[in-house]
């Protein structure tokens, strides 16, 4: 194998490139990225960058020296538009063709949008350019409405509230982040938001966005209007597979891979884009979290080089909201039984364990870093026992 092409120059793509080199691959590596920015970190977009604590430069995933040391060819600011599996070639929007022996797909996800044209002031949040535009707009202290009470919407609501804006979190679900962590944790998150002055509108369907040039509010059922000058649409994301249509790859949920992150011979996928068979859980997963992007990028690269290791990580995610640091390992499937283990020594800190049919599958820490790490060891044990 002489030529590896990596499409998507973010967390997963970068980890793949670095791992190829760390494992001794001496051929050419070409990284293609639609954004003009060198690889940067997304989690701070809704946290430190949005709050103003950090400037954009701090988000760089590597400094220039480290990027140079990779000895890769960078094609930034250009989109890949098609893949020919048989001819082993990726075509870019400027019609350049990149021939490869090995390919790693890491094009991530895009925010799901509301249908129709949107007035100014309606945002999605995925990239640095989105985040900078929102941050600028928040400086005028607009009334903020967030549509969608998943992890991103809920976290953004906390950050905007922390900046002194009036914030309403509108969700279809009965409780914020309940889809991720269940109703009990969702109730505690809702409580923390109410205490901080975020208005919650659960179980609410937004009928339309009001405003001609600039947004003026959201129309809700019963003829009610929620006034807002800034709206964040955080209703989930869709894998960026459009450019792979017609390639023959299975795109049922992102790029569908086997237990080794392989989508087709010599073609692997990693990060938010990839769904794969997790042998430890005995099910298919696609994970949209930062740690997985690095771990899976590295795993895909090793397997491309012939390692044949099944990828079976313990999923990890974190979110910062007001003074609460949430971290979780594993899964919280619907119907899982939640048990809360309070920290006797420290009120307000706890670990929540999730079990399915008696088997430990997930653990969440609420300001409980160390206790959660212990729970992780139990989780790892439970996962191994079942393999």
């Amino acid at each position, binding site marked *: 194998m002489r030529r590896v092409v990596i499409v998507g120059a973010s967390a997963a793509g970068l980890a793949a490139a670095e791992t190829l080199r760390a494992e001794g691959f001496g051929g050419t590596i070409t990284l293609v990225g639609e954004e003009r920015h060198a690889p940067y970190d997304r989690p701070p977009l809704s946290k430190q960058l949005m709050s103003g604590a950090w400037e954009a430069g701090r988000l760089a995933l590597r400094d220039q020296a480290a990027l140079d040391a990779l000895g890769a060819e960078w094609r930034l600011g250009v989109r890949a538009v098609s893949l020919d599996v048989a001819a082993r070639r990726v075509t870019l929007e400027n019609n350049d063709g990149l021939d490869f022996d090995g390919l790693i797909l890491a094009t991530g996800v895009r925010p799901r949008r509301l249908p129709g044209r949107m007035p100014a002031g309606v945002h999605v949040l995925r990239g640095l350019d989105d985040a900078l535009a929102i941050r600028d707009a928040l400086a005028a202290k607009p009334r903020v409405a967030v549509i969608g009470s998943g992890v991103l919407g809920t976290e953004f609501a906390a950050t905007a509230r922390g900046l002194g804006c009036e914030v309403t979190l509108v969700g279809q679900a009965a409780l914020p982040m309940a889809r991720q962590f269940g109703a009990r944790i969702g109730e505690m998150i809702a409580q923390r938001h109410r205490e901080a002055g975020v208005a919650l509108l659960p179980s609410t369907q937004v009928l339309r966005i009001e405003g001609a040039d600039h947004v003026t509010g959201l129309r809700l059922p019963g003829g009610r209007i929620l006034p807002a000058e800034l709206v964040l649409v955080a209703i989930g994301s869709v894998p960026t597979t459009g450019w792979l249509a017609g390639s023959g790859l299975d795109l049922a949920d992102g790029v569908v891979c086997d237990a080794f992150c392989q989508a087709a011979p010599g073609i692997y996928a990693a990060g938010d884009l990839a769904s794969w068979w997790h042998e430890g859980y005995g099910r298919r997963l696609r994970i949209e979290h930062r740690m997985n992007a690095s771990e899976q990028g590295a795993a895909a690269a090793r397997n491309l080089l012939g390692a044949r290791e099944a990828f079976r990580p313990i999923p990890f995610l974190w979110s*910062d909201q007001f003074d609460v640091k949430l*971290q979780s390992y594993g899964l919280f499937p619907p119907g899982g039984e939640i048990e809360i283990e309070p920290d006797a020594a420290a009120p307000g800190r706890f670990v929540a364990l999730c079990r399915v049919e008696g088997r430990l599958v997930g653990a969440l820490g609420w300001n409980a870093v160390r206790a959660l790490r212990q729970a992780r060891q139990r989780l790892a044990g439970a996962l191994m026992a079942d393999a």
Partner: protein
Amino acid sequence: MRVTIEEDKCCGAGQCVLAAPTVFDQREEDGIVILLDETPPDDKLAEVRQAIRLCPALAIKVEV
């Protein structure tokens, strides 16, 4: 080798502690990394490298 950390970058993910438990720990209050050993023995290099690879905040550096 010499290990350095940037506390204000750390997001408390704890991957470093999992990868190299003799080199890193975390403060209980906020999970921020604590460097237990600035100059670990050479046989810990692979663990430290793994910590650097996994750290989502890029808060760890090593000079060999």
